[in-house]
């Protein structure tokens, strides 16, 4: 149990090529923080710097209020779970879990007690005598987690621990890890490139791109108020639709207009931003679940867009409609659909699923939350 503090942490593998740049982050005691971003954005590098496996080029790293920049990994009181499990191939499951404790001269009885306890929690008690190669992927993952929890570390680090598992097992382990966190109440830093994992597991999410932190926020905050186009596109599934165009003043207020694409009257909350934006290019973002969904149809004043259905993907509880308006192609996520491809629909757009970004900087325009 400990806090973690990153101040202007940077990593340069080569001069002028930052793998991680100026990361500021305060992690509270017992918090579950997820680092998410596309492959190669520097998540592992950042995690390895926290672990002490990678030298910190610049900035200050504090664990429990103590600067640890130059402390080797073994003295940082952290445990780490790796993507490919990294179990010691020549040791039994028991020895894999006991290894770190033996190195720390924990008494034999206590080692045994901790290993048995962890094995019970993870239901791997019957596997203790086996070698890693005799385990399935899911079992190996449990052992890797077990190896971390027996250590009772101040901070747990996970580097894409579920990405080698099949989809079903991944969902199950996701829940188990979350449950584990709620039981242990330890500080955990979790790296993933999967936004679903990030959204479902994190107390707070750090979205990264090209070594830079884009936004740090709770899952819902990220989903509702992405700070830029990248975050908006990365969080949410299916991803947000984007349309490039300009804002035009109409007699009723402002309207988004795209050449040969969609035209959408904007709700009041965007007027101030629209006025400030003037003639500069904007990007309109529409969440698929805000187009033609049940909630949107309930709103009688919702603006509507005409769309032609191209492809229908039934998902069971909902449908993904791939539609076009003029030259703009986008996705709508609706609960009910009884038509067929080729149909033309008039779909209402939910006003709080509308986003505007600056065309050049791609930063979110500011919105007046309390206006309709």
């Amino acid at each position: 149990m400990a806090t973690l503090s990153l101040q202007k942490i940077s990593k340069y593998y080569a001069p002028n090529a930052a793998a991680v740049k100026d990361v500021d982050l305060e992690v509270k005691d017992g918090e579950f923080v997820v680092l998410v971003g596309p492959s190669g954005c520097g998540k592992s590098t950042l995690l390895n710097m926290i672990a002490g496996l990678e030298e910190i080029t610049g900035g200050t790293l504090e664990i429990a209020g103590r600067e640890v920049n130059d402390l080797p990994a073994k003295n940082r009181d952290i445990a780490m779970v790796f993507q490919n499990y990294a179990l010691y191939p020549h040791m039994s499951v028991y020895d894999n879990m006991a290894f770190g404790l033996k190195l720390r001269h924990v008494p034999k009885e206590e080692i045994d007690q901790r290993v048995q306890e962890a094995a019970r929690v993870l239901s791997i008690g019957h596997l203790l005598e086996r070698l890693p190669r005799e385990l399935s992927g899911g079992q190996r993952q449990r052992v890797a987690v077990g190896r971390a929890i027996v250590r009772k570390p101040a901070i747990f680090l996970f580097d894409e621990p579920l990405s080698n598992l099949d989809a079903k097992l991944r969902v199950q382990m996701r829940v188990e890890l979350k449950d584990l966190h709620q039981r242990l109440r330890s500080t955990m830093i979790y790296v993933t490139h999967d936004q679903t994992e990030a959204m479902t597991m994190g107390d707070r999410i750090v979205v990264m791109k090209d070594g830079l932190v884009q936004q740090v926020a709770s899952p819902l905050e990220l989903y509702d108020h992405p700070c830029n186009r990248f975050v908006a596109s990365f969080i949410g599934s299916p991803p947000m639709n984007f349309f490039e165009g300009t804002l035009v003043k109409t007699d009723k207020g402002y309207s988004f207009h795209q050449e040969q694409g969609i035209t959408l009257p904007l709700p009041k909350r965007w007027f101030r931003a629209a006025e400030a934006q003037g003639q500069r290019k904007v990007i309109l973002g529409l969440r698929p679940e805000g187009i033609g969904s049940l909630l949107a149809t309930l709103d009688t004043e919702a603006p509507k867009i005409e769309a032609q259905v191209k492809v229908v993907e039934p998902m069971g509880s909902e449908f993904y409609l791939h539609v076009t308006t003029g030259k703009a192609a986008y996705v709508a996520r609706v609960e009910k659909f009884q038509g067929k491809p080729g149909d033309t629909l008039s779909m209402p757009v939910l006003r709080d699923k509308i986003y505007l970004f600056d065309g050049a900087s791609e930063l979110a325009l500011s919105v007046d939350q309390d206006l309709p």
Partner: protein
Amino acid sequence: MSTLSEPQSDSYAKLQRDAEREGKSLFKLSQRRLRFWKMSWVYLVLGGAALLLALPFYYMLVTAFKSTEELASFSVSLWIQHPSLEPLRQLLEGTIYLRSIGNSLLISGAITVGNLLFCPLAGYAFSKHRFPGRDKIFFILLSTMMIPGAVLMVPNFLLARDFGWINTYFPLIIPSFGSVFFVFLSRQFISKIPNDLIQAARVDGCSEVRLFFQIVLPCCRPLLASIGILSFLGAWNSFIGPMIYLLDESMYTTPLVISMLQGRFSNLENVQMAGSLLSILPALVLFFVFQKQIVNSFASSGLKE
């Protein structure tokens, strides 16, 4: 092709079926035969080559057990009428053969142990540690493999002389510890060990020394088998080095003693062959004990399951 399981009824239909099947199997058989005849050239060539390779060994085996009379009575014979242990007795009593085997074991053993320890260490550093000039140093090391050994013979000798190492085992053992080839082999093998495994051990609290001996080395069994076998055999068979550096006969290695046999038992081919035969025994034993590892280590030795 067998009709044993057929019920013995409905004779006409059965006959017809048999005929059909026969026709088919005849066709199959002829095809197989054709394939065999096409392949026979290959078998012939391979078989011939195998014979050619085996012949000297056979000759050695047969001759080593011929009595001196039998040896004298025929010029060259591939058969043996009265097997005799006389050549062996002459060899062991008339020379320091047994002692030379002890010497050879000592030298080869030391070289093998040294290579097993130092080469994986160097390979580990070259593949898993980052230090300035790492790749350049490795490249320079590799390029020394291009220098023929004969070129270095004289400088090495002079160096050993200055160290006062002539007529000792040091010049044979110490320089062999840094075999570039084994370092190269180790680097290639160890680079296949996942970095995560090493990092996991570091996070677990391993010191670098323990990490090497308790985590890295146990993952390297196939590598250790190749290094062990290759370096033992190389040292066991080496001839030039011992010939240059060793002066006292009592320190001679087995290959030196065997070469001496040609002078001392110049007409007694059977004693010479007995000496050769004995000298390959350790290699054979090694091969049979480590057969599996040898095959594994030369096939690609995968760490990933």
